[in-house]
Structure formats: C-alpha cells, structure tokens
C-alpha cells in the first residue's frame, strides 16, 4: 500500500500530531514500507472467519449498581494544566 503526502497529513490530523516537513517525508516512507509488508495478510482467505477481539472469553462483566467513593478531587486535579472551582480549566471548545 503506497501512502502519499496527503494521506500522511490526513492521518496526522486525525492523530492530533503536528509533523514537520522532514518528519512527514520520513513518515511517508516508513508507513509505506510497513503497510506494503502488511499486505501479506491479503493472501489469507478470511471471508468465513469471525474477527477475534477478545482472547479471554469474558463477556459483559457487570457489578452491582452500588455507589462507591471515587477519587479525591484534589488528587485528580493535582496534575492538571489548569484547574478552577474543582474542574479542569481548558481553552474554549465551542464557538
């Protein structure tokens, strides 16, 4: 699978990564090479195969709906960029 410059920029945007021009160049080469190798999977017929997402076989692990203490608010905020009135303070998110 060949990756072009536009694809690198699109995937970088989805990934929230800002790449420099040399980084984009290298990323294009690396991703192309790796994805080309991964095309080997296409030689395996898998139409009748179910995807295996979980190996442990556990399903729908529930607990009783009983409220338990969570974390102390100050602890969760101790690493924040900014905090105000017990909340994370962030740049404006909606116009």
């Amino acid at each position, binding site marked *: 699978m060949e*990756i072009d410059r536009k*694809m*690198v920029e*699109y*995937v*970088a945007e*989805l*990934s*929230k*990564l*800002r*790449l420099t021009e040399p*980084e984009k160049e290298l*990323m294009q080469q*690396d*991703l192309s*090479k*790796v*994805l080309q*190798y*991964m095309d*080997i*999977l*296409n030689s*395996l017929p*898998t139409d009748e*195969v*179910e*995807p*295996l*997402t*979980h*190996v*442990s076989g*556990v399903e729908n*692990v529930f*607990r009783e709906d009983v409220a338990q203490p969570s*974390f*102390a608010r100050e*602890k*969760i905020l*101790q*690493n*924040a*960029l900014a905090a105000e009135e017990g909340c*994370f303070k*962030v*740049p*404006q*998110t909606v116009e």
Partner: protein
Amino acid sequence: MIQYETAVALRQACIDGQTTAQAQTEAYLAQIAKYDGVYHCYNTLNEKAAEQAAAVDAKLAAGEIAGPLAGVPVAIKDNLATQEMTTTCSSKILEGFISPYDATVVQKLQAAGAIILGKTNMDEFAMGSTTETSYTGATKNPWNAGHVPGGSSGGSAAAVAAGEAPLALGSDTGGSIRQPCAYCGLTGIKPTYGAVSRYGLLAYGSSLDQIGPMAYTVEDCANLLQVIAGYDEKDSTSTQGLSFDFTNALQNDDLRGKKLGLPKNYLGEGLDPEIEQAVRAACEQLAALGAEIVEFEMPMIEYAVPAYYIIACAEASSNLSRYDGIKYGYHPESFADLEDLYLTARSQGFGPEVKRRIMLGTFALSSGYYDAYYQKALKVRALIKQEFDKAFAEYDAIVSPVAPTTAPKLNESLSDPLAMYLSDIYTVSVNLVGIPAVSLPCGFSAAGLPIGMQLLGRNFAEEGLVNLAQAYQMHTDWHAKRPVLKEAE
C-alpha cells in the same frame, strides 16, 4: 556478596538471621549507586526504600508478615502506576507525572512485604524492542555494554542481570518481558491474558498487555507471579477464581508422559544457527528428563507480525489519545487554542517511534481502511488462535526460540523500523492469542551473549510450564551465570 543471589536465597538469609531486609535493600542501593551510571537501568529510585525495609523488618520480627517476597527488593517497570514515585513510561509527555493511585500489582507487592527499589527504564510507552526509544536514554546490556538489553522491559532485565535488583516486574505486549530476558540471560513469564490485573498498567495494547515476573530462576518468577496474579474487580478483563499454586511444579523433574512440540518452520533460515543449536540442545535435555519432543509445522507464524502490529498500533492510537496536555503530563508553555494545545503537547511530548505507531494505528482504523487492515488483522488473529488450539490438542507445550538473534549492538536497530518489528516474530503470536509463555536461558553465543528459549502453553497452563522450566533448571546451570560488570569511569 548478595548481588546475584536469588530471591529465595535472600529470603532464607533473612530467616536464618544472617541479614535483614534493610541491609539487603541498602546493599542493592549501593550496587545501583556503583553501576547504574554505566547501565542506566533505572529512571527513578525509591527514596524511602531503606526506611520501608526497616518497617518490614519490624513486621517480620513481630511475626506479622511472611511469604517468599517479605523483605525482598523488587524493581518495577516505569509504566506501572505508583503514588510515591513518578510514572513516566520513559516518555517526555509524562515527565514528572505522579499517579493518583497505585497499580494493583504494586499494592500486592507492598502487602507481601516486597521493597520497591525504583522504576526501571523502558522503550517509550513500551513501544520498541531495544529500550533505545526511551526519552531518558538507552539502557546497556550487562553482558556487554555495547549491546542493547532488549525491550521494552530492558531496564527491568538489565537491573536483575546487573545485580541491581533480585526480581523485577515487566510488561509484555509483543515479547517485552521474554525478549529482554533472553538477551540478558534471565527467566521471565508472560502470564495468560487475564491472570494479572492491568489496573495501573499504563496501556499500550489493551487486548495484548500483561504484567509478569523477571528473575534469575523460574522458582523466583513463580513466587512473584503467585503474589501478583488473581482477579481484580478494577480490571474487567481479569480472570475470576484464578489462583496459582506452583509447589508441586517446582519440586518435580520427571517429565515422562509430557509431549512437547517443536515447530520445525520456526528454525532454519532467518534464525541465528547458534540459537537453533542451543534450542535443540535444550530439547535434548528435556528429552533426557523423559519428555517426548515432536517436530511439526506452524505455518501461521508468517502472518503474526503484520497482524500483531496492526492490532497493537490500532489499540495504541486509541489508548494514547488520552495524552492531551490537559489532564496530566507535559503542558506546553503557550498555545493559541484547544487544537494548538493538543498538537503542541503531543508533538513535543511523544518520540518518533510512538508517533509512527499512532499514525499506523490511526490509519488502520480510519474510514475506508478499517476493514482491509484492522478487521482483517482480527480475522488473522482468529486463524492464529485456531492453529494454537490445534497444536495444544496434541502437545502439552510448544518449544520455540525467543528472538532470531542475540542482543544487537546499540544504535543499529532504530533506522529500519520494519526490520525491528520483524525481530518480534517468535513472541507476538503469544500475545495475539493470550496464552502464557516462559522465557529461560539455554546457552551463550560464541561472542558471550545469552541465548534464551520459550515454552508456550495453553491458557492457564502456567503450572505446567513452570514445571518444565524448573526441571530444565534443576539439570542445567545457564541461569546461574552472571556477567562481569563495567565500573563507571
């Protein structure tokens, strides 16, 4: 000279009154002070280790605590959350990060009286096979400081090999416990997926990650695994009703009736001939103890690396989206708006290998490519599992190399990512299907670098694997070899 003693020997020395937990801890701290400048096994040391050891000594004297880990020092990989020390995953984006909670395995170690010496170096976010992608610098292999210790749990492996800890915890997503053990002459276990709680393990690939023990001997690994394994309601993927008892497994070296499979196609081209020779010799040793060794084929290995990297990178791209510069970790000094904050934090905070894997994963999950890559890889994963299920219907365990070569030299691996990924060929299938595997030393190359082998079992077959490994270690002494260390200049 307590460095290079097993945890069992250290514990016995305390019981016999020859030493104390505090004295042992101080001896390890002295070893770290002497050698870690050369090998860089640790990112952070526990300032309170000696004090905590003294507290354990008081409990031991009062008969309040016992068990194989009581008073024993342990090193833990820097992707395990600790409240008392930073947890950085060897990444700039988590520099200085203090977790608000301890990982479940950390709580279990503390309850067992183990003394945490510090947080060990690793590949950034566990992404790598050499510990060279670490933001804090590369770790050196104690057997030859010009070579890598392996990765991503290279710091943990090097710490044990260099006598800077008798035991360590690592994590294994695609071989990150087993391969550094092989490169450093140690024994390690990747437990069955679900056997050990992942609560507090900073996630790389959530369907693949497991925490496991690293030590000189399988006996030490088994004792450590027994402490950390078990159901945790905080990890919904952990297995209910699980507990291990390795007592019988560790005492019996009669392997008659055991049937072991050796995949012929795993050997030959692409594998260092010295490693093939060592693995075959190990099979002969196991046969001499009564096991039947049968050669057979496991052709799906051809597809393991691509399937693994698509799934691991896809899961990683999702897991690492939490590093946004807001809640914790690296905060950029200035930013124009929300978008700029995300881009700046992540671009300045992540290293190149992490960015590469995030990009690969995001691509594999993106609209238009999701079926061809991610879904396809999951289907191949199902086929790989079928092949293992079929093998385990025949064999009690599968014998395998751990890596195609011994430890590479420093600064040779990062320029060709694909070649680096391909070196994981013997380890990734185990994580894809969730089965347990033990890595143990079985020889040395002519150049003096350790060689390891793997024993793979079906789900929850840890006791059987420990038995095989213990029988081997009762009749060989590879695990008793220690390197000659380089002092700081």
